[in-house]
């Protein structure tokens, strides 16, 4: 569970664009995966199978949330931080990153999060998303460019020095 948690979360975050929702859906997906564990015939396919569960549940949740709130993604992701003190800075960064991620396509989000947050190689990303490694590289470049443009060099530099 610990080994795959961040990858599952990255996929949920890519679909939902909101860290809190992504954590909820990730946890729910793990429970669902345990319930359906007998469906996995080949253990080496477990990771892909789990991430597909996360993707599907995130999309279902996303549809449900749209119906419930009828608010655009950016409004949800740009919510004000709740934690005081140093946690507030982290919450600010989280909010900024979420807002910047909302500018990307779902595919770009998933590629950049799996690569830069989870540390996957392009081969793994390509396999998981059924795209070529070249396309994975292109999406990563485009996503990084858009994120840097949106976040600005200063914010990213300060963030990297923490």
């Amino acid at each position, binding site marked *: 569970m610990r080994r795959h948690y961040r990858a599952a979360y990255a996929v949920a*975050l890519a679909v939902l664009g909101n860290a809190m929702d992504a954590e909820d859906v990730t946890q729910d997906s793990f429970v669902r995966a*345990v319930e359906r564990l007998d469906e996995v015939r080949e253990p080496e396919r477990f990771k892909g199978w789990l991430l597909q569960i996360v993707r599907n549940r995130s999309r279902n949740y996303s549809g449900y949330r749209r119906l419930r709130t009828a608010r655009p993604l950016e409004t949800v992701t740009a919510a004000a931080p709740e934690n005081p003190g140093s946690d507030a800075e982290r919450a600010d960064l*989280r909010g900024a*990153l979420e807002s910047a991620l909302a500018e990307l396509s779902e595919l770009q989000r998933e590629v*950049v999060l799996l690569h*830069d*947050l989870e540390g996957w190689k392009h081969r793994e990303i390509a396999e998981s998303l059924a795209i070529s490694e070249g396309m994975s590289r292109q999406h990563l*470049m485009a996503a*990084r460019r858009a994120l840097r443009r949106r976040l600005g060099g200063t914010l*990213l530099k300060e963030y990297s020095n923490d």
Partner: protein
Amino acid sequence: MTDERIDFSALDPTAEGDRFEEAVGRIRAAAAPALAARRARVGVVGQVAGWWRPLLAAAAIAGIVSAATLALVEEPALESESEAGVAEAIGVPEQIAQWVRSDELPGPSELLVALEEPR
């Protein structure tokens, strides 16, 4: 500059150790009934798998004994059935076929009745 990794650590769910452990605990608690049911199911399958070899050996022995018994018992029946089948195929009435098989001689009236029977 697009070849440099974006720092997403503010979004990393495992960065805050306590929070992450709480999340793992929540998943474990929610998945506990499913895991227990699976353990019980795997236990039953394991027991059946343990019995599989002796069961297979017993079934093989029973099969051989049954086949041999059937071969011994059903051989005469098959023979008479095939004779009756040939008589019926060439249009000889069943009663006449029986007389032929038993070497009995029918009386003239019995023969007439047998020949008048519808086939």
